[in-house]
């Protein structure tokens, strides 16, 4: 008996990173949680200027307690098979929720085939999540990494067991969702909580926001270089000699994405059947979608190198050189915007200066978005 208590305390001390398979087993009929108060507080969501209304599923309203639980789950390696990998391992706030690598590393040092994506304003992306859009919602998405063999390589059955016997999570699931017994902790509630946390990861305080959406009165907020970059980005031919066509795919007002799928010409293939990663085509089954990927938001783009779904470009200079070259053509490339741009060195610098105005350090440093276990 004593041993059990000792083990229990050790397990508690190791929270969250413990490999607690050997921890105390709760009684088969679960732990009664009704002594823990359940009074969820609605989260006061403030939509920044210019932002669209948020599509929140009716069965998963935002609450302070749900978000708090989601944040714990997001940063807790308990979701992985050997307690080494959390969501945050590949989505680190300091890289705007990416990992700074071309391909992400999962359990056992396994390397994936795609680059991690920034989780930023993700609540507003309604046309599918992931590079290929295969997840319909944040709830749906959050279920996937756990059982992905090269990411967390764990089973949800097992994660449910681990969470059910974990006093911290018994309490937090009770507070967030009003469950009466630890047995009611499920993957679906975990996914809901994670989704709630992700919905508040809103970035709206870059120089770009100040200039265009917050009526910042400072006339010198943008340098001439940044302003010229703006004209190129938005094809403003009354103010610029050259058009960059970027906004055709990365506009969306303050979201800086059209939230749509394109082939942006990075792959040199003979036909639509030859893409090493068919991207959207594998999801829709349409040949004409092969090689298309979601045009991601360019928010905090300066912080999320390397770039593209396979992390092929190390710097924004390389990205701009790619677009300037016109890329590689097959029939689903939008040649209207993916074509030689004839940018001068100055134009390229201007464009990159403008891309840098999307950087929002408030977002990256927001204390509410950091690891709650530290």
């Amino acid at each position, binding site marked *: 008996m004593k041993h059990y208590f000792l083990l229990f305390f050790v397990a508690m001390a190791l929270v969250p990173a413990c490999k607690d398979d050997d921890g105390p087993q709760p009684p088969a009929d679960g732990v009664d949680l009704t002594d823990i108060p359940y009074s969820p507080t609605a989260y006061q969501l403030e939509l920044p200027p210019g932002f669209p209304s948020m599509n929140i599923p009716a069965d998963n309203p935002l609450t302070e307690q749900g978000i708090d639980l989601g944040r714990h789950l997001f940063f807790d390696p308990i979701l992985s098979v050997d307690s080494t990998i959390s969501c945050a391992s590949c989505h680190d706030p300091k890289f705007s929720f990416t990992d700074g690598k071309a391909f992400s590393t999962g359990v056992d040092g396994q390397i994936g085939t795609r680059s991690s994506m920034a989780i930023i304003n993700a609540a507003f992306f309604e046309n599918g999540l992931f590079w290929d859009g295969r997840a319909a919602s944040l709830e749906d998405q959050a279920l996937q990494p756990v059982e992905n063999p090269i990411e967390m390589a764990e089973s949800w059955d097992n994660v449910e067991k681990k969470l059910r016997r974990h006093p911290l999570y018994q309490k937090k699931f009770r507070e967030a969702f009003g469950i009466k017994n630890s047995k009611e902790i499920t993957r679906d509630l975990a996914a809901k909580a994670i989704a709630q946390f992700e919905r508040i990861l809103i970035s709206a305080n870059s120089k770009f926001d100040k200039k*265009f959406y917050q009526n910042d009165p400072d006339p010198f907020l943008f340098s001439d270089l940044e302003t010229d970059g703006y004209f190129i980005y938005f094809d403003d031919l009354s103010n610029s000699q050259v058009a960059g066509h970027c906004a055709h795919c990365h506009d969306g007002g303050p979201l800086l994405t059209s*939230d749509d799928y394109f082939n942006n010409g990075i792959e040199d293939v003979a036909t639509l059947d030859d893409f090493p990663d068919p991207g959207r085509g594998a999801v829709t089954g349409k040949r004409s979608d092969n090689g298309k990927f979601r045009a991601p938001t360019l928010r905090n783009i300066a912080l999320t190198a390397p770039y593209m779904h396979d992390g092929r470009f190390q710097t924004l200079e390389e990205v701009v050189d790619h677009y300037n070259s016109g890329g590689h053509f097959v029939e689903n490339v939008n040649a209207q915007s993916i074509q030689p741009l004839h940018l001068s060195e100055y134009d390229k610098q201007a464009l990159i200066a403008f891309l840098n105005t999307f950087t929002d350090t408030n977002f990256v440093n927001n204390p509410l978005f950091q690891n709650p276990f530290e």
Partner: protein
Amino acid sequence: MKLLKAASLLFFAIILATGCKDDDSGPSATVNLNFLATYDGNPLVFQQTYDYPDGHKLLIQKLDFYISNVALIDANGNKTELVDVDFLDFTENTSLAEAETPLTITATKIPAGSYTNLQIGIGVPANLNNEDANKLPVGNPLRDTYNAQFWSDWGSFIFLKSEGIYDNDNDGTIENNGEDHPFGHHCGTNESYVLLNFNKPIEVVANETLDLNFSVDWLQLYNHDSGMHDFSDPTKLYTHNPNDLTLAKQIMANFVKALSLN
């Protein structure tokens, strides 16, 4: 007593509220608006090449547009709205089977009766054509297409997008080689809005479904009064300059030829 009064008032209010609705919905019907895109009368398949009248080939990559203010009009000029605004995107039709299947917008509870005209606008009505459209409720077509269709620099939705590549060097293959001509006609801003009118008797019969079959012919969008659009002219490939909307307005105006109601 007071309470009773209040209660009966409430009761009346409810009767009135629901009663009103009942009055409106006399015998009514469902109207389907079916839209097909065609190229010279044949179903338009995207990412395929077509023969342009000048003998060159064309690859067509995109066609989408908004319709709005769609209404049936009776002999006294009374309007019955079918659709306030909606978005039609044909671009996903990359096979013949898809191209032969119309995009359908359904209007329900349309009062039965005899109508003499149908009006249809192309574009987004001025009162809705602004940034605040993204604050509309989820499910509203303007809100839901905002990211892809609202052009911040113009402060306008793009009413029509037509994109493709013209085989300018006339070697029979479409390339992005600097010789061939990609084109992107993106038309927007309030001044390019068009309102069309079909003078045609339309019977809406109670409890039945009426199909109104529209087709929009791509070639006719480029049938200017001065002749077919000249895709070899490099100055006529884009409509991105907000200070020169001539071409954008011309293409929008061609809807009068391109859109037909059978």
